[in-house]
């Protein structure tokens, strides 16, 4: 239920506006957020990549450092090892030459021979006599790397000849895996791995295989097996072994492999092996599968195997720092993004609110403006009173939408005004029509009572009184008839009537009156003409028409009544040869109290109600009455009724 156009318009408009604003808001915000989120993701990726890069860098640095240390260790171990024994052994080879001179030569001969021959025996033999590895840690370690803590630096040196050295930090543990599992052809090789030395102690380790250079020249066989790279300093790039499939450590690699078991990003998470296979746990150092003992191959030259490891704490701390920095940057970025979004949201909200407020004001103004004509129309309508039925709209033209309403209103007001005027006129007419006979009667009575009179005089005066009273009575009767017709209580009591017969009867009643005025009255009829109608009302109609025909006829004129069928209707026409009437009179002839002429007949009984009643009666009977007239040539009133024969 809409109570107020203004209110509902404002509400509906604001609802629409809210929808539109909401949609715009949502769209803009979601687009902006999408963009910002995309940017944020990119930034995050960049930061992650940066972090990964840094982690790799760090790992590479760590590995390099380890390798350098391992190589340094390798150098040092060669320096410090007790070589004299080895030298002695080497000299024994010369004994071959002195077989003849040395008494025990024949004894040593097999050994020497075995020595010169490649073989297990020879190897085992020489190994057992090879030097023990020596190492002075307290002296070496500070030189190796300043600030290196002996507790977190682990190394183990093995050799082909069996002697080995373990750093003091490796008291309880040792490097797992076989350090000798390098390809035998590679003289110098290294590999990195992350291993678990002890439970909860993960370290980054490097395994380095270097030839024990100080043992040169030792044994021909060894010398022969060497492929000419002996002179190379340890630490330089190792030669490319044709069979080696292992990626070159230190060399630029396509995909930097993080140390197994300690991926920089997420330690302890799944680890991918170099072959891409999944491994459940960090596998520790990846060594070539150990060869079966039967395949044992004697190294061409004894090698030193240096395993060297540092605790991952520092590395991890650095990584953690990087991670922290990354997280911080990420976090900052997110915070900035969120702040930016919040700012955007606030701005959108503010804009929406301002727009909304402006729209509320604007809508109120617009609606007020739009409804102004309605208000002025209402004002104008409120000014309408029974005294003034005009709609005081002034000069301002009404909008097109209100045009029909205004037109209709004006029409209705016009009707109302006419009805009001008619009512007023009717009251005036009634009082006027009643006043004249009343005045006559009162005057007559006054005269009669003024003085004693003769009986004849009284009789005359009383007769005048009776005439006046009669006239008043007739007027009252007619007014009542009309009032009953207006109220719709005058019902039609229809029965079959011979219209021709009825016309005859009426003519007979008025004929004396007509003849007294020298008028000829004629009825034209063709046999009976039965119609279903109210005979009393039909008689009243005919009598009225006949009286009028007599009243307004010229002297020596004639009256003709024609009864017959016409166009499927039953028609009675009353024609007179009177003065006729002009068109404007014809239009008003059936109005109440209208008289073409103010004349009354001699008994003063015409109040202008006769034809009004005739019209009402004919309407009530479902018929039609028309009048043809030409001024000076008489008038013809035609009453047509539905023909029951046709129905």
């Amino acid at each position, binding site marked *: 239920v809409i109570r107020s156009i203004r209110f509902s318009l404002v509400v509906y408009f604001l609802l629409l506006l809210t929808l539109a604003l909401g949609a715009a808001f949502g769209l803009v915000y979601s687009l902006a957020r999408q963009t910002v989120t995309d940017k944020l993701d990119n930034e995050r990726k960049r930061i992650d990549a940066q972090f990964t890069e840094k982690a790799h860098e760090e790992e590479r640095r760590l590995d390099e450092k380890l390798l350098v240390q391992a190589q340094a260790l390798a150098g040092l171990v060669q320096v410090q090892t007790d070589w004299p024994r080895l030298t002695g052994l080497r000299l024994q080879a010369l004994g071959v030459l002195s077989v003849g001179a040395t008494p025990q030569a024949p004894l040593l001969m097999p050994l020497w021979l075995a020595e010169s021959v490649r073989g297990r025996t020879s190897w085992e033999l020489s190994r057992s006599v090879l030097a023990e590895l020596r190492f002075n840690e307290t002296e070496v370690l500070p030189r190796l790397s300043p600030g290196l803590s002996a507790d977190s630096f682990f190394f183990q040196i093995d050799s082909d000849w069996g002697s080995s050295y373990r750093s003091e930090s490796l008291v309880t543990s040792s490097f797992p895996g076989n350090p000798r599992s390098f390809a035998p052809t590679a003289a110098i090789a290294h590999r990195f791995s992350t291993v678990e030395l002890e439970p909860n102690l993960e370290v980054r380790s490097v395994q380095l295989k270097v030839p024990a250079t100080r043992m040169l020249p030792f044994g021909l066989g060894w010398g022969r097996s060497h492929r000419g790279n002996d002179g190379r300093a340890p630490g330089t790039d190792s030669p490319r072994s044709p069979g080696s499939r292992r990626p070159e450590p230190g060399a630029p690699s396509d995909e930097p492999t993080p140390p197994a078991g300690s991926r920089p990003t997420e330690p302890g998470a799944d680890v991918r092996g170099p072959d891409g296979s999944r491994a459940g746990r960090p596998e520790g150092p990846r060594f070539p599968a150990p060869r079966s003992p039967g395949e044992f191959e004697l190294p061409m030259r004894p090698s030193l195997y240096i395993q060297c490891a540092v605790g991952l704490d520092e590395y991890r701390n650095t990584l953690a720092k990087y991670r922290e920095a990354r997280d911080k940057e990420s976090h900052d970025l997110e915070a900035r993004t969120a702040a930016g979004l919040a700012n955007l949201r606030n701005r959108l909200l503010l804009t929406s609110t301002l727009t909304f407020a402006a729209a509320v004001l604007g809508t109120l103004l617009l609606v007020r403006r739009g409804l102004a004509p309605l208000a002025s129309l209402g004002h104008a309508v409120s000014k309408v009173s029974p005294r003034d039925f005009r709609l005081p709209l002034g000069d301002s033209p009404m909008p097109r939408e209100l045009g029909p309403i205004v037109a209709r209103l004006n029409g209705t007001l016009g009707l109302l005004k006419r009805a009001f005027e008619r009512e007023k006129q009717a009251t005036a007419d009634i009082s006027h029509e009643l006043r*004249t006979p009343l005045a006559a009667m009162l005057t007559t009575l006054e005269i009669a009572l003024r003085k004693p009179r003769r009986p004849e005089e009284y009789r005359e005066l009383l007769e005048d009184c009776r005439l006046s009273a009669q006239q008043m009575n007739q007027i009252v009767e007619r007014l009542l008839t009309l009032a009953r017709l207006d109220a719709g209580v005058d019902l039609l009591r229809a029965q079959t009537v011979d219209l021709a017969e009825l016309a005859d009867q009426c003519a007979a009643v008025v004929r004396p009156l007509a003849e007294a005025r020298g008028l000829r009255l004629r009825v034209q009829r063709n046999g009976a003409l039965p119609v279903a109608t109210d005979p009393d009302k039909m008689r009243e109609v005919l009598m009225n028409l006949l009286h009028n025909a007599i009243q307004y006829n010229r002297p020596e004129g004639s009256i003709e009544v024609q009864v017959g069928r016409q166009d499927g209707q039953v028609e009675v026409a009353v024609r007179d040869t009177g003065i006729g009437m002009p068109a404007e009179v014809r239009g008003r002839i059936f109005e109440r109290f209208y008289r073409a002429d103010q004349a009354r007949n001699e008994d003063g009984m015409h109040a202008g109600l006769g034809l009004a009643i005739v019209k009402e009666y004919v309407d009530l009977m479902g018929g039609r009455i028309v009048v043809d007239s030409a001024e000076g040539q008489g008038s013809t009133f035609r009453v047509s009724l539905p023909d029951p024969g046709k129905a």
Partner: protein
Amino acid sequence: MRILLIEDHRVLARSVRQGLEEEGFAVDIAADGEEGDYKARTAEYDVIILDLMLPKIDGLTLLQNWRRDGITTHVLVLTARSGVEDRVKGLDLGADDYMAKPFEVKELVARLRALIRRTHQIKDPVLRIHDLEIDTASRTVKRGGKPLVKALTPKEYALLEFLAFHRGKVVTRSMIWEHLYDDQDENTSNVVDVYIRYLRNKIDKGFDLPLILTRWGEGYMLRGDEA
């Protein structure tokens, strides 16, 4: 005093006429506008009583035409319409008085007399000529301070009043006749001499100074103040 009554309601016209005649007025009746117009233009009336709703020519039109044509006879409008607007309209168009139906004949007579006095520019309703007093309101006549021995009939009074209105001037027989008798009267102007004799008998008989004088060959005259 001769009155023209233009009224189409026969009973009313008859009653008014009878009432006025009994008051000594001579009343002509016209039943429609045309007849009224004709009579007003051809005869001399002291007052015209005009109904407004008339056949053929309505009262207001008649009034308008008369005033336009210089007919200044006093007109008393008599109508069933009693609205202020109707009254104002009638007065605006030159009516001198206005009465609404129904009315009392007594009031009509009083208004007619007032109009007649206005015609003769007399304000005092009592006319005094020497020792003769004529009270036009009560229509009583005194001579020497005493009522007349024999009262005047309405016709005699009307004759005396007419002479009094024209005192000091000669009025002809036909003037008297025209003002005292309506158009339906069968009498000739000789009847005037008869009434003058009656009047002399009632007014001058027994007094030294005769007031009704005869101008032979001209007419009669009521003695003016100078003589």
